[in-house]
Structure formats: C-alpha cells, structure tokens
C-alpha cells in the first residue's frame, strides 16, 4: 500500500485526489492529455433523470481568484449517460468511478440511483442535494436537514453502493445537515458545492450571467470550504471528502488535516488541465517537507 493511499468508504484509492463533478466531464477530454488512471478516482458530470440543456449563455464569469458558473446541470440524462458516456469513460478509466446524481424531486433522485446501481464500475454514488426541490417550493434539498434526510432515506433503499451526500455551503448550520444525512444511512459526506454569487457588467449594468446568479468556486472559496470540512468532520463518524478551491498539494494536505479522507479538485482542472496529475506528483515532496510518512495519518490531525 503506497504512502498516498487512502480508504474511501471501504474502497482503496491509490491517492486522495479526485476531480470534482462538473469540471471533468466524463473524463475523456482529459484522457487526451494524460493517463487519467493516475487519479484516485473522479466524479463525473451531475446526472439527472431527463436530459437538460441548462441555463442560457453566458454561463461563466471570472472573479478574483475564482469563477462563477451557472451551467444549470447540462447533461444528457441518465439513460444516455449509461448508454453513451460511460462506455467511452470505461475505455480510458479502469478504476471504480464516482457517479454524481442530481434531482428535482425525491423520485427523480431515486430513479437515477436505481438505474446507476446496475453499473458495476460505479464505486460510489455522490448525491448532490444543492438542487431546488420542485415539489417542495423550490428550496434546495440541501438547505434543510429534514429535506436532506428524506433524500438520503429514499435513495438508501435502492442502493448497496457507498452513498456520499454532497452538501451545499449556502446554509447557516452545515453540521446539522451533515448529521441528518449520517442518521439516515449516508456512508460519507462531500463538501462544499459552490457558494452563491453574482457579477455585474459595468458597461451594460446587467448581470454578467444570464441566470443573474451563479456558483463561486476556485481558490477564493478555500478558507470557507476548509472551515466547513473541519466543522463537519468533527461532528460525524463517516468519512468526509473535502473540496473547494483546492489547487496544490499543500491544499490537499491542509484539507486532510482539517478532517478530509479524500479531496476533490474542481475549477483548477478548467484552467490547468494537468492540475490533478501535478498535485499527485507534488504530494510526496510536500509530505517529505512536513515529515508526513503516510497521508492517512494526517486525516483530522489539526490540533
């Protein structure tokens, strides 16, 4: 077992570095550039029951040390993902992959999970509960412990795979939501999704994003993410995947010290498509500098 290796809900990863959903497509664009089997795993594009176009353009705005996106979960729908995207993904990636699931109703989540359950190469299900609940008045499932718990309870019944719940940071008490998910049988928690933000074009006086608001990601959000990972990791017994602004090996180690068992890397992949292999290559050198023998030893090591 290598010194970078970590356990994620009973599955061994060669290293804790995981490209985050929505920033890595289904993997094959990156496979043109490097052998993506060097990754711990990756979380593929958020998948919904029906095909979605997403939001109108522009969907992207730059910020200081980060970006806003309002892609709006564009994806071909779960059936096409299984029939068209995953076979291509499995040609270039041979490890268990993480499926990222989104929905706008409990039934929507359940149906997507049910269909993905049959796909052997899917190692984990990462359930994104940041989407608005169309049957519950449009509030995001992830902003209310009860709504979050109801999603976990429902999908738990239809999957035996490790179930990771991905939390939204746009809440006042993230710990209560994480605990509600743990109580209903989640095997892990991943956080954070993007922070709600906005930019205005001074010339036109209009929001830059056609959707008006979007999700902030990139190095700008790292300290917020780290704080939330720290709070949640101390409050739950299940593993936590940390993400938000990670772009260096040092960031990975900091996230793990705060309590993360593995780390996802999002926006960094978009501006440097080699970000993840560079982080993995750098990790042993940075570990040596801080006298870390095995990465697993530092999970939650913050004093």
């Amino acid at each position: 077992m290598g010194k970078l290796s970590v356990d994620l809900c009973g599955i061994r990863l060669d290293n804790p570095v995981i490209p985050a959903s929505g920033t890595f497509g289904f993997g094959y664009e990156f496979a043109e550039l490097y052998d993506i089997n060097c990754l711990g795993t990756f979380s593929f594009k958020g998948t919904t029951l029906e095909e979605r176009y997403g939001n109108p353009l522009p969907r992207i705005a730059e910020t200081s040390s980060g970006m806003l996106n309002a892609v709006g979960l564009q994806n071909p729908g779960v059936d096409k993902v299984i029939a068209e995207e995953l076979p291509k993904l499995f040609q270039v990636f041979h490890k268990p992959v993480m499926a990222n699931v989104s929905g706008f109703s409990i039934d929507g989540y359940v149906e997507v999970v049910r269909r993905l359950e049959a796909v052997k190469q899917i190692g984990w299900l990462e359930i994104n509960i940041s989407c608005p609940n169309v049957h519950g008045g449009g509030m995001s499932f992830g902003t209310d412990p009860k709504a979050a718990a109801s999603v976990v309870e429902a999908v738990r019944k239809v999957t035996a795979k490790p179930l990771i719940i991905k939390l939204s940071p746009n809440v006042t008490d993230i710990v209560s939501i994480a605990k509600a998910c743990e109580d209903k049988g989640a095997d892990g928690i991943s956080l954070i999704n993007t922070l709600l933000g906005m930019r205005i074009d001074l010339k036109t006086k209009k929001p830059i994003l056609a959707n008006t608001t979007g999700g902030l990601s990139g190095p700008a959000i790292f300290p917020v993410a780290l704080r939330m990972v720290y709070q949640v990791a101390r409050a739950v017994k299940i593993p936590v995947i940390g993400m938000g602004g990670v772009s260096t090996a040092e960031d990975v180690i900091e996230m793990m010290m705060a309590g993360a068992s593995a780390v996802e890397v999002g926006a960094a992949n978009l501006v440097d498509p080699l970000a993840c292999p560079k982080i993995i290559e750098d990790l042993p050198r940075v570990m040596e500098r801080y006298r870390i023998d095995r990465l697993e030893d530092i999970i939650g090591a913050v004093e």
Partner: protein
Amino acid sequence: MKDERLKVLSNRPLTSGDSPVWEMVLSGVTEPMRPGQFVQIALPGRFLRRPISVCDLQEDPQSPGTFRLTIVYKIVGKGTADLTGYQPDDELSVLTGLGNGYDLSDSGDDPLLLGGGVGTPPMYFLAKELIKEGKNVRVILGFNRMDEVFYEKEFRHLGAEVTVTTVDGSYGEKGFVTDALPGGISSYYACGPEPMLKAVHKKIAAPGQLSFESRMGCGFGACMGCTMKTAGGYKRICKEGPVLRKEEILWEN
C-alpha cells in the same frame, strides 16, 4: 490539445485609439492547427484563460512540431491589457489545438471571407490556406472607422482581393460588410460580432460557415460553460464550435 509554454517573439500595436488592436507572435510547441481554431492563454493573476483565434501558424522547417503562432487581439478588459505588457523572450502558458475550425473541403472555387473587427484575424489564416489550394479568395473586412483598420495590406500580400468597409465611411466603402457583397461566390466564411453574423446569415444564399464567441470556463469541452442550442443538438462552442454551418444556427441563445 497541447499545454505548452510559448516564447514571445514580438508584440506591437496595429491600431491606436480607445481600444487598440495588437499583434503578438509566439514560438514553441503547439498542435498543428487549422484556420478557425483557437488557443487559451493563461495570464498570471487572472483566474480564467483568454480565448484568442489563430491568426497565422507557420511550422519551423528546422524543427518539426515547433510553430510560429500569430495572434491579433483587441484591448477590451484587464486580461487583454495585461497581454500588451509582454516583451520578446517572455513566456506564456498556452493551450493549443482548441475548437473545430473551418472546413475548407467544400469552399468551391470562389469563397468569400467576411471579417468584422477582431473577427478579421482568423480570416487571415483561412485566406492563406484557401489561396494555397488555388481558390479565388475575396475578402471583406468591416470596421467602424478608418483608425481601426488593420491587416488590409497583409491580406493583399497573400493574393486575396480585398474590400474594406467602414460604418462612418472614413475609409473604403461606407457601410457594413453586407453592403459590399459581390456576386458569383461559391461559399462564405464569417467571423465577427453577432449582429454582423446575423446580417450575413440572412443576406447570403451560398453555403456558409460562421464562427461564434462565448465566455468560456475551460475551452476544451469539460465544463459545459459554452453550450449553444443548434439545429443539430447542443454544441459546445469550444469543442463542436466555434465554427457552425449556417443551417445549424438557431439565433435563440
């Protein structure tokens, strides 16, 4: 796609005024690119890369795989202003080989190339390649005013027949590119602001290919930040674009 550090050979203004246009020549390892493709340039301190079209590309006969890349950019914001500070021998990190590029195979013998403002640069590379294939290339370059005009001479040197239009009539023919359309064209290729593309799309009956812009997260198909609805389904401007065939365009995005 390749991610390499390219060395600046030269960087100079082509026009003056409020939003001047500059030309930068870079050298190093790139993908062998086609006209209509683009690159993504990383700038220190700016989070996202800047997409810029290939204006010219020449392989170094001494070292295959090494190219001399010309870009022409207009200063519209912080990133393009940063670019003007680069000196010969400075280096930039550049992703190359992005987008689909123009299809030259069905241009016919008399293609018409239309460039508006900084939509002109990709037309230079395209004109060069079409002329190499022996086509009778006509080019219309549209600008607002005389002091914005660039590359007219460069296009003539390639052997293209060039018409320049200015909106205020201070140089060349007065009006828009669509006011100077010649007859007898076999196909057209266009790049420029969206109102120009719309007008061109409406006015010219011949087969056409038009190049689009979008704000981009990645530029290589990973983020879905740039997807347009087309008659042929959803297309990422950075991957299945930026060039679309005229029959694909819906104008509803």
